[in-house]
């Protein structure tokens, strides 16, 4: 968490990452940028999912619908903030010649998506029965 707060400075200061170490091959930086954009698309997909739950499941009970939509929107926010943070960490690690940072986030997100999907199946089936 403290590490995260320290990294937030790097998000806004244009030159600070560049001051450290050596500039890596530009292709590595571009690959890192594409990974960042892929995570941003994941975040946008989660946010779009939040909108979709709100609009395309009108029969779902109000609290379920709002709760699920808000959970998806919140996970989108988390995903995009984490995308910048991970991008900065990778950029810095490449400049310093260190190993790229390992992360539990993809596994965590995968689990969350799986749980939400199973919950949706249950909700739809229960709704169908009743």
């Amino acid at each position, binding site marked *: 968490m403290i590490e995260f707060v320290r990294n937030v400075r*790097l*998000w*806004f*200061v*244009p030159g*600070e*990452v*560049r001051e450290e170490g050596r*500039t890596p091959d*530009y*292709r590595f*930086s*571009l*690959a*890192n*940028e*594409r990974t*960042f*954009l*892929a995570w*941003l*698309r994941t*975040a*946008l*997909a989660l*946010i*779009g999912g*939040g*909108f*979709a739950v*709100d*609009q395309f499941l009108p029969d779902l009970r109000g609290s379920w619908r*709002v709760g699920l*939509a*808000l959970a998806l*929107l*919140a996970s*989108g*926010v988390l995903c*995009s*903030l984490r*995308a*910048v943070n991970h*991008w*900065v960490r990778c*950029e810095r690690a490449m400049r310093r010649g260190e190993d790229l940072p390992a992360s539990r986030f993809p596994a965590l997100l995968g689990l969350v998506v799986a749980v939400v999907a199973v919950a949706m199946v249950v909700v739809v089936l229960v709704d169908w029965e009743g």
Partner: protein
Amino acid sequence: MSTDRDPGLQPERTRLAWRRTTLSGTVVAVLAAKSALQDGAGPSSVLAAALCCALWLAFLYIAHGRITGLAAAHRPRALPPPHATAAALCTVAVAVCGAFLVL
């Protein structure tokens, strides 16, 4: 000139990644606009949807700037951190507008 072109087409792939991401943002903006056009949508939800569209324009502006930068240099520089942060914050702001629309 063409001999020392990057055979992996990295700048082109990065340009297309920006395009894809803008397209994903477009889908979200369209969904936001749709929810504001539903029956019973108050002025606050219209405002939130308009804000989503404005944020989409801001993202388009960032993406366009980066694409121009990628095309201009033979060996493009890394993305400046404030641009990455601005792109991510646009996404966060869209989600916040979305929360207003849902509630």
